[in-house]
């Protein structure tokens, strides 16, 4: 009797997985426990996408992703330095997701890249979105910190971003400096 009940429950469970809309299931996983400090995984992923828009890959240098933006976030969002910025980032993500949902019926990171670019630009330039503006500018600052800080923090892999700045004086950063 117990075995029959168990198998029956198991069948129900397996069937339920098939019929639960994928979006909800995915969202439950994504909004599960905080990944980085108190930054949830969805906000983390959105932040990484935004960073690539802010500092993209081109012939001048690798973009934020290739430079290690993810690794930088993983190491630094566990510290207290960015704790006050987390609500700002979460707000930014919500604004982007809401706008994307209105126009495309999906969240921001699921949208095509061209749409993402246009949406960011429209929201940033719009006078109605001071909240977005302030939040996005904070993300620009975080992206610059990730891309131009010492590689030991996870970003700026191979000091690649410093090569843009490589010049007669700025060479010092690229080669490092012995202060002893």
């Amino acid at each position, binding site marked *: 009797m117990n075995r029959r009940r168990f198998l029956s429950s198991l069948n129900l469970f397996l069937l339920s997985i098939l019929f639960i809309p994928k979006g909800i299931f995915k969202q439950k996983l994504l909004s599960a426990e905080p990944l980085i400090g108190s930054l949830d995984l969805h906000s983390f992923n959105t932040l990484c996408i935004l960073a690539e828009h*802010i500092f*993209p890959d081109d012939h001048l240098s690798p973009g934020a992703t290739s430079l290690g933006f993810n690794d930088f976030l993983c190491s630094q969002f566990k510290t207290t330095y960015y704790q006050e910025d987390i609500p700002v980032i979460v707000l930014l993500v919500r604004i982007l997701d809401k706008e994307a949902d209105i126009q495309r019926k999906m969240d921001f990171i699921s949208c095509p890249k061209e749409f993402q670019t246009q949406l960011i630009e429209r929201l940033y330039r719009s006078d109605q979105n001071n909240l977005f503006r302030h939040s996005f*500018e904070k993300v620009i600052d975080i992206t*610059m910190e990730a891309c131009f800080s010492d590689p030991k923090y996870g970003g700026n892999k191979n000091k690649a971003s*410093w090569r843009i*700045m490589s010049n007669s004086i700025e060479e010092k950063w690229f080669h490092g400096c012995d202060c002893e």
Partner: protein
Amino acid sequence: MAATVNKKIYDVCVIGSGAGGAPLAYELASRGLNVVILERGKQYTPKDFTVDEFMMCRKDMLSPGLNEGAREIKYGDNEPIRCNHLWTGTCAGGGTVRMSGFCLPMKSGDFKPLTNNGRFKNSTYTDWPITLDDLSPYYEKVEKEIGVSGDANTTPDRLQNNAFPFPPLKTHPFSKLIDRACQELGYHPFPIPRLVLSKEWNERKECGYCGFCGSYGCGRRAKGSVLVTYLKKAGELSNADLLPEHYVYKLKTDGNRIVSACYFNPEKGTGEVKADTYVLACSAIETARLLLNSWTSGHSNGLANSSGQVGKNLAFQFPSEVDGYFLASLLPSNHLAETPFVDRALQDLYCLKNQGLQYPKGGTVIFLLPHPNPIQKAISLSYDEKGNRVYGFALKQKMADYFQYTHLISDTFIEFITNPQTFITISKRYKDSWGIAAAKVSIVPHEENIKTMRFMAQKIAEIYKIMGAQKAIFNSNPFTAGECQQGTCRFGNDPKISVLNSDCRCHDVKNLYITDSSFMPSGISVPPVFTIMANSLRVADRLYRS
């Protein structure tokens, strides 16, 4: 947790271990007084200092983070913001750990701005109750005790005919281009004296020419911060105690005199230190904040504030930064030289009489190569002329365009016209992480300062043009450069309009002295650190005699 009261009663309790606190503390301890120095920040050693911009300049190693260092700041007509701007240096050694070490004394006319320039509209500056002659012996003492490198033959108004303790530092070939261009315009450029050793001395190494002076600690001890000079010597005395991570949040009084300094410490919790005499040297903003937060029924306007002047007359270094763009191909072949120091100063624009300006005071111009701060440079390039952000491919192209040039910038010390709209008081909205009311700062530059800033920028651009610059961009933001804050507890002979007497002793509270830059009753046109240290030694003399 119950407060801990230190059983020892010191002769002198110095609050703050920077340019204003450390020289006085060492001087008094060396004369046999029992001295304690309460420092809010940590005590680092030179081995802790690296050229890591993220740690040293962005995080809270040398200045507090947003929670610990919360302030409410109103820039001009903008809405007040909660931020952690305008901190000098929160560590043993204070702002001297992060300074560039430019070392110039004031000139005799600087001590009489009211007499020389008259009462200018919407201004509050007053004459200093001392003269250059009062300060000169102490300038000389600081030079010898810290070690200054310079060229006595070219430095204007050299106080004595003797050479500087050390020869000038090596300079970049750019400096010769500057010299030629300035001389063509009839100016007299000179290598700026530096509180940096050009030769090894007293277990301190000579400068390694890394270029990471401004904003960074010096791992070689070549830069003469008070951490490696006065504090080090004080640490060798048995009658001097330096207590780092002791954040003084209130001064207790018995009505007439201060009886204890109350502090927070991460390990001990709250505590109190008792002394006969107290010296505040927390920086202009924090000293005023401490006094205002120490109000009692007998001092309802804040401690030592019967004049109403505590927090008023705040001044800063007024900037006029011009960024000169030079194509590398047009520079001398040796422009890739190892030394990063241009170190050229100009004081031909110090007085601006007959220049069509209503306020006839300019300042000191210092030419230097950009600070090697990649994060800060990237962030600054992400702004356009209107203050909007640039990002994406446009940002990357802007960076590439910018860095095809070599840059020369000007750091300018223009006398800030103190005015009623620039002051500090106590915030009703924000507190720091210990629950102490934050400072509320209002900054409104005087319109005549802005005119002077633009005038100086034009003159600097003329120099760049003769040097062969492709372009010169005016970069100045009149709300920047909070490091060189001055005023807020000015000294003077009239207790109705000053907080301190000419010995920097408080009119209202007889066992209180103030020796950070708060004592200054007007802005000054030179980097202030040399004057703060000299005055600290002068006050030590007065205090000891009293």
